[in-house]
């Protein structure tokens, strides 16, 4: 039976009915339309950022730039005004980096530790503990604003970059714990037992056995956390002061506080600069992201 299946297989594919081909191409067409629809704003942003302000005023929104100029990018990076200061996005971009990198590392690390404990070192009330952490994921940002402001004040880190790192780490722990817990819960508990008999302690087991297994889920968590923290606006605007604002807040200030002529090309360039790191993270680590999301289900 299997011997016959092979010679018939190619013949069958040649005789695919016309309706099926039409359906397939129709599908591609629809997908292409949607892709174009989603890429359109990016296209407009990119072309607009490369035009001069005169060309924007005279030309069409979707037209390609006649003379490509990077002036708008330069202005957005180091010359655009946010209120009275005219330093561009650069200082705020670095603020965002200074906030996002430690916050991502800390929240991922704490999430790995929490997930490891909740999944593999069951204690009385572990389920309740985990449920409460999950609940933390679903608390809207607005609810924590005032209590958080008070806590930051008491800790003496209100309006500082460490303050913002603290806020993002606290808010991220719920998600990172969830990710790591769900990943670690599929690892047989006998592994911990074997390591205990071998003499390894709590941290040794995490370090030598669990973390080396965790690359896919670490990538997922890092992407998730980086995107959340980089794109955050509400915490950034609420808990910062002049000089510690993240790039999202600065972008808003550039766009909203200009007087006179609206410099669309500068706004667009600034928006792309602000969005670039998250885009980059997806491009670089995207395939690990998909792999990590499905990793638990295909364990051998």
């Amino acid at each position, binding site marked *: 039976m299997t011997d016959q299946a092979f010679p018939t297989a190619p013949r069958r594919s040649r005789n695919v009915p016309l309706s099926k081909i039409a359906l397939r191409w129709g599908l591609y067409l629809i997908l292409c339309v949607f892709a174009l629809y989603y890429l359109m704003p990016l296209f407009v942003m990119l072309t607009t950022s490369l035009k001069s302000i005169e060309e924007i005023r005279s030309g069409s929104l979707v037209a390609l730039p006649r003379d490509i100029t990077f002036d708008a990018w330069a202005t957005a990076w180091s010359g655009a005004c946010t209120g009275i200061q005219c330093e561009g996005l650069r200082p705020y971009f670095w603020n965002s980096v200074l906030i996002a990198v430690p916050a991502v590392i800390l929240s991922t690390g704490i999430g790995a530790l929490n997930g490891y404990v909740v999944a593999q070192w069951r204690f009385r009330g572990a389920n309740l503990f985990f449920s409460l952490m999950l609940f933390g994921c679903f608390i809207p940002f607005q609810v924590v604003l005032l209590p958080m402001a008070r806590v930051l004040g008491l800790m003496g880190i209100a309006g500082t970059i460490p303050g913002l790192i603290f806020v993002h780490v606290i808010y991220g722990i719920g998600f990172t714990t969830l990710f790591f817990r769900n990943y670690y819960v599929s690892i047989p508990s006998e592994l911990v037992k074997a390591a205990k*008999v071998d003499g390894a302690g709590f941290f040794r087991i995490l370090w030598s056995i669990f973390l080396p297994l965790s690359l896919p889920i670490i990538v997922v968590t890092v992407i998730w956390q980086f995107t959340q923290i980089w794109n955050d606006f509400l915490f950034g605007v609420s808990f910062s002061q002049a000089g510690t604002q993240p790039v999202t807040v600065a972008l808003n200030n550039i766009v909203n506080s200009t007087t006179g002529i609206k410099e669309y090309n500068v706004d667009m360039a600034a928006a792309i600069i602000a969005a670039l790191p998250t885009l980059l993270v997806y491009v670089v680590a995207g395939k690990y992201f998909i792999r990590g999301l499905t990793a638990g289900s295909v364990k051998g």
Partner: protein
Amino acid sequence: MAPILDIKNLYKSYGATEILKDINVAIEPGDFLVLVGPSGCGKSTLLNCIAGLEPISGGSIDIGGQDMTDVSPKDRNIAMVFQSYALYPTMTVAKNITFGMKVRGVDQATQAAKLAEVSAQLQIEPLLNRRPGQLSGGQRQRVAMGRALVRDPKLFLFDEPLSNLDAKLRVEMRTEIKKLHQNLGASMVYVTHDQIEAMTLATKIVVMKDGIIQQIGTPSEIYNHPENLFVADFMGSPAMNLIPARTQKKDGGTQIEIASATGKPLLLTDTTHRNLPDDVIIGLRPEDIAEAGYRSGQNVQTAHCMIDVVEPAGADTFVVSHLGGKEVTARLHAETTACAGQPLEFAFDLGKVSYFEPNTGERLN
């Protein structure tokens, strides 16, 4: 000699549920103790308690003459092989085997020497640089054993180590574990639900049910003198025939009356056992019921029974008939002419019989 493992009055409970009740077991150095019982009988929990992976609720555990009740697993001088092998997935075979030594701070040269010795012993040298994911089930099993062997422990613990292997490999590895035990002369505790594994490996068997020890004994004691109906039914394949019967005192012994499908009761006379209650359950292994003429002995009685089913199994032929409202299996020689629907004269070897009290299930003789 002092016992290598001595468990006294061990209790284990999770909240209000008692998992293990008053466990008392001791083994001598070189013993192979098998804990056997159905799922949920607490045998794996007991092993975890011995390993120190589960805290106990009462009693004490001595290993090698030292009280280990509250000692952490790493300081108990034990090694353990798990059902899923629990190999560290990101480490090579060599690293898996040496991980314990590395954690304990054993120097590199000793680690290498030990690794070489154990891998030669288990014939896993070609695998040392592979990851567990690249190994077959049997190979993983060997590596797991290697990880236990390098420890050179006072006590080896095995938690159903063969249950993930296919039938053929299981028999091979069983023999290998037995050889290992003989060569090392090590003390081992082995958990299984497979009564054949228990019989073949053990020098001492503990049969458990619902967290209570039903019987402790050598394989022969467990097989030939089960202490109660549970042990009688659990150990042996096919299971022991347990037939309800009535007894009557008679000159020179006891007359046993077993209801038969034909309506005419089957009568046997036991000349050695007296003072039995009126109602009993008699236990006879399939091999203690033979075709008449093929079994002789002082206390062999013959009787005719109708045959329901004939099951040739190659080396033996199993014959099923109906007695006392139960199916009764007899193990006959392979060339028997018995056929279904025909009566056959059986020889019952009452020298091997076990009597049980029908209500309590306890052994009477």
